[in-house]
């Protein structure tokens, strides 16, 4: 066998409070597609960022074609011949395909100041046809489909004479036929001796495109499998790990409780497809799925933050029309966004102001003044109720820890009398100690009769907290599990149940 193009050994990387990469090993040979899989936060993207010079490594060695190399910045990676295509597109939509590919190194004429547009287009055409990509280089990028834009990114990456191409979830925004187009291109590159690192959440794609599969979990290298010998079950069990998260399974006896929220046939473009579910009083309903499965989109649609194409929402049996967050709040729905700092809090204001700000009309005196004594009383009550650890009500929220900030947001919604609370990734960015505080809070809220939808990408969290679990994939609900029957494996199976993998075994010969 050839020498490996890339060999990474003993890679270490820590961020404050997180051991992101722990003695990670990875290698790549020319002419292969090596898939990198793992749950969210397993360390895949961090490893690739180390390889492309975005993050410096703390320890370990990287060998490129057998020679040890140092990759201090993205430019150095590019010069070596390592190119990456990010999940978010890095193209300029207003420019043409050819202009995008050669931006920054355009062929010039006339004192190196005039652009040689003909030459740019000719070179782009040559490049595209050598890759068997059928796109007119004179088209504006904004007018291309997402798939075609991705092809342009590939072409751009390759025009730097790359020998290693890293693709981070390239198919997440593509339709089935577009994926096939992309795979065609990947196979072509592979046959030309290029090494491709392929990060994906779509496990069923692995069989089709990869040669080897490396699994990571919690920042650690787990195992590398030959794709021909790997089964989906084996990959999933490696991804989620052997250790069973011992969770006191809660009884899901909410059968007799009143249904407080019912959603029927919710649709929104390609992101929400026919979503229906019921939420009962005192229930914690977990929403599981991979990134981009449409969970946040469902929450935002219910909350009126995004318009819906069709669907009905009932609150306590009555049909309601929610057109804006204001409507949602009137009906007692509160939404706690995953990005607290951007959407949930006013960081420059103090605890008291943040708690009462959405409900000021309740605290007005006769002349329209805000009555300080009343707001302080309310804020004091909430701080005691939720055990918010703040030195005073006048503490600015930005100086509080992540977990405490989260509680302030909850206090705000409770003050608004919200009975239905949607938590989107409630423990993201919160350290382990504070997490259990949040879990305790969620349990107490549910016990006091509030109904909770909890969106989370962390399976142990979903399993530990939920009475019932809804799993989504590609905008559809692919499964529903009671707490007793739920396991990480079953959730992962539902979460990777793509439309094509459901149909394909029979239809594809």
């Amino acid at each position, binding site marked *: 066998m050839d020498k490996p193009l890339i060999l990474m050994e003993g890679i270490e990387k820590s961020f404050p409070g997180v051991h992101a990469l722990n003695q990670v090993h990875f290698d790549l040979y020319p002419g292969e597609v090596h898939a990198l899989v793992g749950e969210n936060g397993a360390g895949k993207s961090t490893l690739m960022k180390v390889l492309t010079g975005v993050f410096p490594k703390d320890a370990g060695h990287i060998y490129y074609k057998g020679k040890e190399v140092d990759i201090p910045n993205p*430019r150095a990676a590019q010069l070596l011949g390592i190119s990456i295509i990010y999940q978010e597109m890095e193209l300029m*939509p*207003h420019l043409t395909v050819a*202009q995008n590919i050669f931006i*920054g190194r355009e062929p*010039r004429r006339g004192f190196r100041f*005039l*652009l040689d*547009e003909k030459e740019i287009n000719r070179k782009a055409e040559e490049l595209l046809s050598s890759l068997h990509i059928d796109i007119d280089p004179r088209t504006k990028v904004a007018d291309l489909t997402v798939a075609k834009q991705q092809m342009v990114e590939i072409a751009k990456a390759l025009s730097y004479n790359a020998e290693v191409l890293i693709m981070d979830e390239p198919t997440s925004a593509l339709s089935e036929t577009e994926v096939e187009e992309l795979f065609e291109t990947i196979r072509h590159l592979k046959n030309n001796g290029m090494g491709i690192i392929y990060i994906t959440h779509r496990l069923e794609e692995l069989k089709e495109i990869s040669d080897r599969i490396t699994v990571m979990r919690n920042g650690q290298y787990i195992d590398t499998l030959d794709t021909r010998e790997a089964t989906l079950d084996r990959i999933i069990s490696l991804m989620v790990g052997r250790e069973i998260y011992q969770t006191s399974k809660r009884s899901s006896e909410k059968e007799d409780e009143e249904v407080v929220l019912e959603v029927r046939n919710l649709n929104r473009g390609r992101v929400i497809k026919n979503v229906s579910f019921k939420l009962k009083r005192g229930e914690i309903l977990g929403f599981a799925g991979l990134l981009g499965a449409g969970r946040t989109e469902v929450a935002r649609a219910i909350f009126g933050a995004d318009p819906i194409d069709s669907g009905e929402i009932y609150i306590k049996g009555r049909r309601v029309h929610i057109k804006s967050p204001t409507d949602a709040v009137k009906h007692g729905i509160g939404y706690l966004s995953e990005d607290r700092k951007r959407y949930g809090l006013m960081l420059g204001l103090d605890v008291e102001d943040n708690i009462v700000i959405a409900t000021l009309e309740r605290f007005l005196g006769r002349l329209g003044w805000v009555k300080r004594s009343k707001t302080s009383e309310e804020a004091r009550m909430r701080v005691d109720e939720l055990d918010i650890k703040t030195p005073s009500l006048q503490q600015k929220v930005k100086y509080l820890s992540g977990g405490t900030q989260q509680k302030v947001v909850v206090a705000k919604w409770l003050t608004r009398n919200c009975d239905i609370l949607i938590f989107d990734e409630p423990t993201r960015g919160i350290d382990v100690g504070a997490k259990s505080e949040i879990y305790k809070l969620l349990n107490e809220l549910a016990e006091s009769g509030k109904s909770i939808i909890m969106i989370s990408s962390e399976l142990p969290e979903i399993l530990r907290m939920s009475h019932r679990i809804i799993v989504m994939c590609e905008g559809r609900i692919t499964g529903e599990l009671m707490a007793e029957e739920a396991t990480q494996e079953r959730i992962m199976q539902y979460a990777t149940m793509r439309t094509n993998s459901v149909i394909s075994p029979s239809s594809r010969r």
Partner: protein
Amino acid sequence: MEKVLKRFTIRTGAMQQVLIFASLIGMFIIFSLASPNFAQFENIIGILLATAVNGILAVGVTFVIITSGIDLSIGTVMTFSSVMAGVFITFWRLPVIVGVLAGIGAGTLCGLINGTIISKLKMPPFIATLGMMMIAKGLSLVISGLKPIYFVDTPVFSKIAMGSILQIPNAVIVFFGAAIVASLILTKTVLGRYTFAIGSNEEAARLSGINVDAWKIAIYALCGFFTGLAGVMMASRLNSAQPSLGQGYELEAIAAAVIGGTSLSGGEGTILGTVIGAFIMSVLTNGLRILSIPQEWQTVITGIIVIVAVYVDILRRHQR
């Protein structure tokens, strides 16, 4: 069906150009029918002359707007350039050509400073150029001693703008010349390409290895160059540098660019569009004056036109 729709949306960029040109022609016809005085040769020349200074300013600021920046200082920097020309020619008795170059140079220097503050100090263009607007205004007053500077001893200076070739005033020829050069820069050169690239996706431009800071400085300096040119034309036309004039011109220039289809969110715009936009504004002013509509109302109507034009731009963007 979808294909047809797609084609239509692709074309809306060009549609906008056709649309504004059609509105210019439409306005022209309406005013011609409304008043026999409108379509007279004298009046047409008057409109061209009235467009020249604002047009040159608008051409310059179009570059900045395409990068999704803004330059609020062009009005008072234009005045500052006039004053500098006056200082060189009238106070220091240097040759006219030196004065002209000094005026243009002063504008370019202000643009260079704007660009440097914006890219190196990471200041929002709105704030940086707001500061420059006040600095240039104050300096003009200080240097001139609050009084206009007249070009009494150099009759040739006023010829720069007011001389004519085939009855067309030089100022108009300079304006068209500047527009053609600007258009070539925008579409044919590296500078133009990077102007669009920065406005379209600045981060992507940076990741592609473009020295975004340096090019931004160059783009603001180019805008300053055109501003200086406008200042010299203004001084020549009035045969004096008027230190208290200038504020408000920046907004008219920005309005002309926006009416002409330059997107305030960056990445889109043409010089031809801006030129048409400038003409729409001056035809409107001229026509309304000929119809004896009071000045106050002219301003109101111009304001409405700007809002409508920007709204059309937003509608177009939403289709995408």
